[in-house]
């Protein structure tokens, strides 16, 4: 199994600022995923991050707002830029379980509050 850590675990930020969330995996993985979970809601996929290529963004999410880095096979960052209160959510990273049919391991999440 993969162990995933995220930093920070929570933060309170002012509108207009940016926050970078880090995701570290204890093994090398090809694909990493970033999700947003708004209060009381389900998970929505923001983007898929592959090492060595540009991230693939889902409809409704753009690189200028959510730039992603994937410098190696165990690490990724998601930046939430120019934040507004609507960005208050839990942000989760996950990785695919090797050799499975799409099962994922999740990090503990980053709880972001924008004031």
């Amino acid at each position, binding site marked *: 199994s993969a162990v995933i850590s995220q930093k920070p675990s929570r933060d309170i930020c002012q509108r207009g600022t940016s926050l970078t969330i880090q995701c570290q995996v204890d093994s090398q993985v090809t694909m990493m995923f970033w999700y947003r979970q708004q209060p009381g809601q389900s*998970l929505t996929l923001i983007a898929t991050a592959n090492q060595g290529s540009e991230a693939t963004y889902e409809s409704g999410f753009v690189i200028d707002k959510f730039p992603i880095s994937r410098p190696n096979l165990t690490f990724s960052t998601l930046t939430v830029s120019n934040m507004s209160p609507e960005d208050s959510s839990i942000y*989760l990273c996950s990785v695919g379980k090797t050799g499975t049919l*799409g099962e*994922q391991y*999740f990090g503990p999440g980053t709880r972001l509050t924008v004031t």
Partner: protein
Amino acid sequence: SQQGEEDPQALSIQEGENATMNCSYKTSINNLQWYRQNSGRGLVHLILIRSNEREKHSGRLRVTLDTSKKSSSLLITASRAADTASYFCATVTSGGYQKVTFGTGTKLQVIP
């Protein structure tokens, strides 16, 4: 957009009772998975059922899948207070990489 709609949205039962959650989805799938989330933290994978399977068991969990009705159910037998969590179904569609799309979730409360 969510692929799966779950009902009920919330469920409260006594410890020892069974809990049943239902999930309906819209498009053809490769497989369907169920995840648990405790108090807004990371999700934990519970069970996966392939599109050519009808029923699967894992401990106190039983999952059924009806592809003709595009629906699935998760049964937790002999519930415990520790089962209190939100449960999400998630579908994986065929083709390309295996993108996982999550349903709306059921919030389960098990009262000791």
